[in-house]
């Protein structure tokens, strides 16, 4: 049975190739730091399941120390000039969008089709992981299509991926690290502590009061932490799973999705989020200026999310 391991192997190979090209790049300003960082990430994707939990813990600390102290550098792999890009764009035109569109098409088609394909009584692809496997397949198909159409030098996909990944830098592992933080928070009882903190103030038998506390709590937590990824595990453990899903019988997919979307309303309003800091710096504005424009939409969408959750998530026979 094909599972998510295939997708991890493909990603691990990509990171390993990027590390190898970095090691060979004498002009790289932080050659060995970047090699170490992308190399460790490759090890995580290729061998993470065989390292053991403590081994993975040491690996994470290594990534955090390399990326967090001193940081990474930018590579300048061979690429095309601005004029060459103008010429290629004029030649290929809108056809340039076709390969990227293969990715969502394959992902969606695969998510449905793989469920139906069985070999010797077993599903060909693990039903719980069809989405990620389909995504990896879509990327491979898109890469083949792009290579066939554009006929670039053979090393170009790796060199271009290295250029883009270096420009993301240490922030590349931040979302994954935040998800890990959320899991550790849940394990350490932060969710229960938050539940215990707000429990006495909340009429727990009134469904809409819990809906509002969950949604507004997601927004406030995201406001403080600058990111909804670490807030979701805490609020789901505090209120979502035990009360909204457990006691009131809410639809788990709806509670999870709408909770995350309440968190996004917080991201739009927090000076902690890179999403607001980066454009302010790029456009010569104060972060407050971007947040002031986003806040009315964020607050309206938050209220809409609470209404949607109350109206739709608890209907029996929901899709």
């Amino acid at each position, binding site marked *: 049975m094909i599972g998510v391991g295939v997708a991890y192997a493909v990603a691990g190979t990509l990171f390993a190739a990027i590390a190898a090209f970095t090691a060979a790049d004498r002009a790289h300003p932080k050659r060995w730091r970047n090699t170490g960082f992308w190399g460790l990430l490759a090890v995580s994707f290729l061998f993470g399941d065989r390292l053991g939990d403590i081994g993975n813990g*040491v690996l994470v600390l290594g990534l955090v120390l390399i990326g967090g102290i001193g940081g990474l550098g930018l590579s300048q792999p061979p690429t095309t000039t601005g004029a060459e890009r103008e010429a290629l764009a004029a030649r290929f035109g809108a056809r340039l969008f076709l*390969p990227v569109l293969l990715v969502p098409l394959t992902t969606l088609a695969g998510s449905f089709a793989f469920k139906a394909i069985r070999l010797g009584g077993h599903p060909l692809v693990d039903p719980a992981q069809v989405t990620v496997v389909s995504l990896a397949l879509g990327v491979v198909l898109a*890469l083949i299509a792009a290579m066939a159409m554009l006929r670039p030098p053979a090393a170009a996909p790796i060199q271009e991926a290295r250029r883009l*990944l270096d420009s993301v830098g240490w922030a590349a*592992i*931040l979302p*994954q690290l935040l998800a890990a933080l959320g899991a550790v928070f849940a394990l350490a009882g932060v969710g229960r502590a938050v539940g215990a903190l707000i429990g006495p103030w909340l009429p727990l038998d009134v469904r809409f009061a819990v809906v509002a506390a969950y949604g507004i709590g997601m927004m406030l937590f995201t406001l403080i932490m600058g990111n909804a990824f670490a807030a979701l595990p805490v609020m789901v453990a505090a209120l979502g799973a035990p009360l909204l899903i457990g006691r009131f019988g809410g639809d788990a997919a709806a509670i999870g999705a709408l909770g995350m979307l309440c968190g996004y309303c917080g991201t739009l309003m927090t000076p*902690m989020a890179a999403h607001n800091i980066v454009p302010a710096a790029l456009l010569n504005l104060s972060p407050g200026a971007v947040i002031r424009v*986003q806040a009315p939409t964020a607050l309206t969408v938050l209220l809409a999310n609470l209404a949607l959750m109350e109206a739709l998530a608890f209907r029996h026979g929901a899709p």
Partner: protein
Amino acid sequence: MLSLLGVGVLLAGLVARRNPLLVVTAAALVAGLAGGIAPLRLLAAFGKAFNDARYISIAFLILPVIGLLERSGLQVEARSAVARLKALTVGRLLLAYFALRQLTTALGLLSLGGQATMVRPLIAPMAEGVAESRLGPGDPDRAALIRAHAAAVDNIGAFFGEDIFVALGSVLLIQAVLQQNHIAEAPLRIAFWAIPTAVVAFAVHAARLLWLDRTLAKGARRP
């Protein structure tokens, strides 16, 4: 209760603008130790959680494809497509980009737009240009308001589009968090539940952009 110290560390570290990788790790370690988890078990739990969350970084798989297309002029082509948006007003120009951004993100193409790749070089100057030609020269406050709106459409479009695509980090994170609470859910169902909010967010922000045109016109009439 002591585990809440971890939240405090996170907040303090981010306010002090320390490197987020260090802050997040410190917050996890403090929360775990304060919550009574032994050091080695905590290291193991953090490592396992990171390993289990690798699906989030799967999104980088697309980099070779995007990079290859970029070296062949993808951004030049995307920019000329956006530049062809013939909008008569600031609000309608931003509305057109907003719709494109939300739609392409819902298809998983988060990296087509962005503050550095689209807003700064293209959308913000185009919007300021439309204002100059339609409403005449304005003060720095008007220019700042227009640039802030240009940044906002990119964020709002991306945020309320991305949860519709089944294989991006946020949908997979929701699935994993539910899994941690012993609830099995399919990504397709989670993505489905992001659609109503996406529609509401589009309607609300589209109305505000059209309202922006009225505000700007009023400001222009003022002597």
